[in-house]
């Protein structure tokens, strides 16, 4: 009897250990300053862009804090960067809390990665750094112009007029595969999304993919010199999800390779620039009636899926300088990658040997 009990206890302990082992617990992103002010932390933790509620945009390293821009009270900044680590785009919205508008054009600035000198580019929404940060695109929802500007020579610019007349809140997806070729999404008169190829030398767009119904959305990204297309059904329909890829330069996009297929409508949010062998996205591990959204890693060679989270309600996935983050209930969690917390700035110049006390850290937080 005693032996039997011991066996049961042993088996139970194995199962419970296994179940504990299986549970993915995401570490919370912590920093020595309030996370809700942080706009960008470099992976090595050596510098941080953050903002104050007074409207200032600041840059801090271990030894220095510099004000990059002083805006009006309540101004909100948003920063975007890519693995190329050459440029950072800064969006400035000075009416963030008193003018709620998805289409509000925000001021767009460029700054060199890890530097502080801002250069104003224009105004619009959804800025995207393209082709190793050599180009910037941004969108004007009112004129429906997708604008492009070289980050090295502001005289080089062009724009594409979108066709969409049906969804005032549509924002195109854009990728640039070479100096001459842009792929972007647009809606036709019926609201069906299409992928178009634009050639700068001819200023002409050609459709290379058209979705089956208006109930599908398209996402584009470049992964290892392949154009990746994600088609995801929306609104609890039965369209399902497909991720496919085709080598660049494109020859025949109809012959693209299917990397992943699901009957469920996934959220998508493809992240193609984090890992050379994997694409991260948000997958519905449940069903349409009881959805369960988590972040998944798709191995493009083996076409296998590995879940990266077990929160069931994932709604976003962010690549911040090589660190994959997700926000849940107002807090940020590290999904993948390592951030060097040792180096995260202390905001004020300090001797390298002197560590801040808990009270000092608390006071810094209060100051914010």
């Amino acid at each position, binding site marked *: 009897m005693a032996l039997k009990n011991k066996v049961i206890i042993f088996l139970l302990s194995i199962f419970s250990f296994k179940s504990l082992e299986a549970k993915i617990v995401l570490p919370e992103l912590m920093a020595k300053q309030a996370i809700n002010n942080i706009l*960008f932390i470099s992976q090595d933790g050596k510098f941080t862009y953050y903002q104050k509620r007074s409207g200032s945009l600041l840059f801090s390293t271990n030894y220095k804090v510099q004000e990059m821009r002083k805006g009006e009270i309540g101004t909100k900044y948003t920063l975007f960067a890519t693995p190329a680590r050459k440029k950072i785009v800064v969006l400035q919205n000075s009416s963030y809390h008193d003018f709620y508008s998805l289409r509000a054009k925000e001021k767009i600035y460029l700054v060199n990665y890890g530097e502080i000198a801002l250069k104003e580019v224009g105004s619009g929404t959804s800025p995207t750094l393209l082709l190793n940060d050599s180009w910037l695109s941004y969108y004007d929802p009112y004129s429906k112009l997708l604008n492009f500007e070289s980050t090295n020579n502001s005289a080089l610019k062009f724009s594409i007029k979108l066709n969409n007349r049906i969804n005032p809140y549509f924002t195109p997806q854009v990728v640039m595969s070479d100096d001459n070729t842009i792929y972007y999404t647009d809606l036709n008169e019926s609201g069906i999304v299409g992928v178009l190829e634009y050639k700068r030398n001819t200023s002409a767009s050609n459709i290379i993919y058209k979705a089956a119904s208006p109930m599908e959305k398209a996402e584009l990204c470049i992964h290892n010199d392949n154009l990746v297309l994600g088609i995801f059904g929306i*609104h609890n329909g039965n369209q399902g999800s497909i991720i496919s890829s085709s080598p660049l330069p494109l020859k025949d996009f109809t012959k693209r390779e299917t990397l992943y297929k699901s009957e469920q409508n996934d959220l998508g949010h493809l992240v193609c620039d984090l890992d050379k062998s994997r694409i991260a996205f948000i997958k519905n591990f449940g069903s349409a009636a009881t959805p369960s959204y988590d972040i998944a890693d798709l191995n493009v060679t083996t076409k296998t899926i590995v879940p990266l989270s077990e929160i069931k309600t994932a709604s976003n996935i962010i690549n911040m300088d090589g660190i994959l983050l997700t926000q849940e209930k107002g807090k940020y969690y590290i999904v993948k990658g390592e951030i060097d917390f040792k180096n995260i700035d202390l905001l004020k110049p300090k001797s390298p040997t002197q560590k801040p006390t808990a009270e000092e850290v608390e006071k810094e937080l209060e100051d914010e």
Partner: protein
Amino acid sequence: MKLKTSHLFSLNLYCKIVILTGLTAFCGKTYSQDQDNPGIIESLERLLEVHRKQYDQNKTKVQSILNAPTDISDLKDVQLDPQFMRSLIFNSDDKYLRLIQKDECKLLSALENNLLKTTEGDVEKVFITYKNKENKIESMALAKNDFFEQIYKKKCLNNREFSTLFNEKNFQKTIEGTKFSLPKNNNECEIIHKEWLDNSYTPYLCRIQQIIKKSKSQRQVALYKEKIPAMQRTYLDNLCNNLTSPALFCENYLKSDVWNKVINGEVPRYKLSFKCKNLLDKSEVSNSDLKNCAAKLVNEPSICETRGNKNFPSDFPMQNCNTISDALNRSKLITNYHDCPGNVDNEAITNIHRIVNHFSPRNIVSNKETCAGEAQFTFARLNFDIKHEAGWPLQICFLNHVSEKEDCVPYIPGSREEEPLSEDQVIAKILYQQKGAPAKTKCRIVDSKAYSPVRSEFKFGCFIVFDAENCTTLSCNKKVIWEDKVQSDIKFMGKPTFDYFTTAFINERYSFASMINEVKGTQGRTIKNLTDLKFYLDKIPNSIIHGVGCVEDLIPEEFQRTAINQCHPMPFIVDGYVPKSTETWIVFRAAIDDLHSPRLVLWQNIFNAVSAYRELHPLNTWTLYGIKK
């Protein structure tokens, strides 16, 4: 459909034959289909012909009796004449025959209420038999009114009182006191149907239904339509049309979609009418339009995904009709208008328009020219009602020829006769004061597609011309044209910025959340969890919930967060919840959504969205509020 009708027709006739042969040994022949006896329909035609002849002969015979009594009070064994009865059975609608099968009093009340017909049509004279002093059966005819005056003294005494209860003076009270039960399941429905068949009121109610449907007396129809609520009228329609078929009666009530509930009058008409106006491209929709439209929405649920918001731009695509139906079934928001979020830059204004008009509904003109102006007007009035003119930023600027400087005056977009600040009146005043236009100048707001300077109607006068399809407050190529000339010095300026929830205590009174309480007498409190949300919506009848959250969390399938602390604040309204599978789905309208196409979202999306925005809010406010009046 044709086949089905003819099948039912022959079936009904067949039933009548069964009833008739049961009641009368009319003819000894059988109804077989051999060479001598043609098909059943042809036999019926002959049968009717024979019956008609016999009826006429009987009528002539009865009316020729000169010494027939006029008072039946002393007569014995008064019955309806068998030939007359046969005629009623042959010529009346089956549904009413079903009603009178078991009960003589019901037969009399059906006859009294004109539900039964003879071969001559409406009954004007009633043919009866009685036993004379020698106990011989004799026939006579009486004028209908005389017959009922006298027969109710002999039998069915209650019928006389029922008639009084349903006369023009009393019918409204009687109907108010009558229970129109709505079934929840099939068994319950069959019981309800049987109860109506046994109910002595039914013939009287069906008479009212018949008058509403068929009477030429407009006065009477109008009276009934005015005094009987839509739900009861539809109920009577359904009952009286389906007296013979509990299945058909129940089908209408056991359908769970909101569209049929609108048709039944169980939920407000606006839940369907605006969608159908748009789908059918009609400015007004009749009840039969609504029925057709409802059938379309049930049979082709994908139609709601792409249609229903034409000229009223909003987020696209919308939801499937089934999802919208589930949501509208539980939705409380009063939506007796159509708005156009895509033409309003500040999404908070659309949300405010929806909330204010829930607690304080007004008559809103819904068309593509006025829909954006109506939303702006709602918000402008809140500011003016609280004497916060500075809170309203939209201005028309012009060159003042006296001071030779630019002057600006406030305006509210759109045209409203009673509102001196409405755009058309402000422009007319500027033209009068600065350009020498006549004092009575009126300006017309015209879509650029309709404006054509070569047409005589646009030759003279003042026109405010704009592209209705591509016009928002901040981005609208609006031109003032007076006497065929563009007035280029008149410009539309201003950006409506304001706090939705307070962002600084110093301005607390002028945030929307405070203004609506002060102006409309509402009260609000924070909603922290799903239990609280359900409790608030369940317990307070007119309550709704509104909030602001990051759109990236509210609608992640459309909006993506790609940077840390990226968040587009999106105002929204929650006005119900739907338990489905193991989840609780929240009835949700983002300010960018079509008003008549609510979504179903999960609580965690709302919680995440409000939590994320709270982190960025200057006062760390939890921006999810229940609001009631």
